[in-house]
């Protein structure tokens, strides 16, 4: 273990990252030390940019560097179809299938009684406003296939149906308890195609 203060500090910061243990952190720190100055500056700049320029879309709550986001402004997407997901990385998983051409709404989580996450902590008001606007004809609930995701889908269905839209739930082809983030394209495609009305 090094005693050189700046290296110790960098190692400590890297170790806070998910999946990085003490050994990996030290290896990365030494790697950065050996890199040309320019490379290190680019990394610093990229990190700062993410914090400064990435915001949440004011329409769908997805992460974006221009508000409203790409999905909310793209004229090629079908705004009658709205897919509701828990997190921004779920949008990426569905986009990988290349098959869905509707719009998204990101809840920023799921209802979680155990973690104390209630309806007011999620982007539900915005969803109801969008659906109430009249353009949407079908809402696809693509929350995770676990107790929290399922409870969230049922909660949302009860709020959305009175607004006169078709509400559907993705098929549970993915194993119970898994995160859609990890679903491959084929599984995700099947889940979307196999959706059924709630």
């Amino acid at each position, binding site marked *: 273990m090094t005693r050189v203060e700046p290296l110790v500090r960098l190692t400590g910061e890297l170790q806070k990252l998910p999946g990085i243990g003490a050994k990996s952190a030290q290896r990365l720190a030494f790697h950065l030390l050996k890199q040309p100055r320019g490379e290190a500056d680019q990394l610093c700049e990229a990190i700062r940019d993410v914090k400064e320029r990435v915001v949440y879309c004011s329409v769908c709550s997805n992460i974006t560097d221009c508000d409203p986001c790409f999905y909310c402004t793209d004229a090629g997407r079908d705004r009658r179809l709205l897919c509701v997901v828990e997190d921004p990385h779920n949008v990426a998983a569905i986009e990988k299938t290349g098959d869905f051409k509707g719009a998204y709404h990101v809840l920023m989580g799921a209802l979680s009684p155990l973690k104390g996450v209630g309806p007011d902590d999620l982007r539900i008001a915005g969803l109801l406003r969008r659906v109430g606007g009249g353009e949407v004809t079908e809402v696809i609930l693509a929350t995770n296939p676990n107790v929290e995701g399922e409870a969230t889908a049922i909660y949302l269905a009860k709020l959305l149906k009175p607004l006169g839209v078709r509400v559907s739930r993705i098929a549970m082809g993915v194993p*119970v308890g898994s995160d859609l983030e990890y679903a491959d394209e084929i599984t995700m495609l099947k889940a979307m195609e196999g959706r059924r009305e709630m």
Partner: protein
Amino acid sequence: MSRGGAAHFALAMPVLTTDALILRTYHLGEADRIVVFLTPGRGKKRGVANGARSPRSRRFAGGLEPLTAVRLAYYEREHRDLVRLRYVEPVRSPMSARDGGRLGYVEYFAEILDECAQEAEPNAPLFRLGSAVGALLAGEIPIARLARYFEYWVLRLQGVYPSLNVCGRCGRRPERGGRIDAAGGGFRCGACAGDRGLPLSAEAVRFLRDAAATPPDALAQVGLPPRADQELDRAHGRLLAMHLEKELRAARVLRAMARTSPGATSS
């Protein structure tokens, strides 16, 4: 520890197989989970499930949702509170509930069990209660009745439910109900209680007496009028909060869900 040492160690610690009820999980790094589970013979346990976050994990697939009844195998590690899980095999999943509106209660029951169960302190009655209620979630019994029954029995098993047979002050049998004081005042008839505590009507008291004498699988025969349900919901909430010295997160979320979407958590 050397590699040889670790292998020797694994041989020395026997693998234990048991029925269990999953209470909750936490993420651990990128791939693993910490699993909190309740056993009939060894109380509450915490263990590491390696690779459980991967959808390709066959050893834990579908078995780690709260209130899943499972068969699992683990081994203890010397000087460590965390056991290591070998596999978790689901026996009954709360996801099988036909009426998904009941799913909000899954984590409510799990949180209460987690708060009441002690580590390394066997509590077979609590395990049986949790298992029975988990099984009944998939059935037809109205969720409010199931919840009040569960709360009553948890509080009784914790030794905090006051006796309802007689008034704690005058000793008479309170035929017309009375009031329950969560702050230690017990149960008193209307005349003795004044405005202390929360009201329990005769119907609410009747439900509790029935609940005391009814096994979970006969709960369909016990009636719970809406007013009695409301009274017991409040009284149990207060008793649990006093006993656990905190407000349950899940109770707060369930209330918010019911307020913003009546019907989303009912039936």
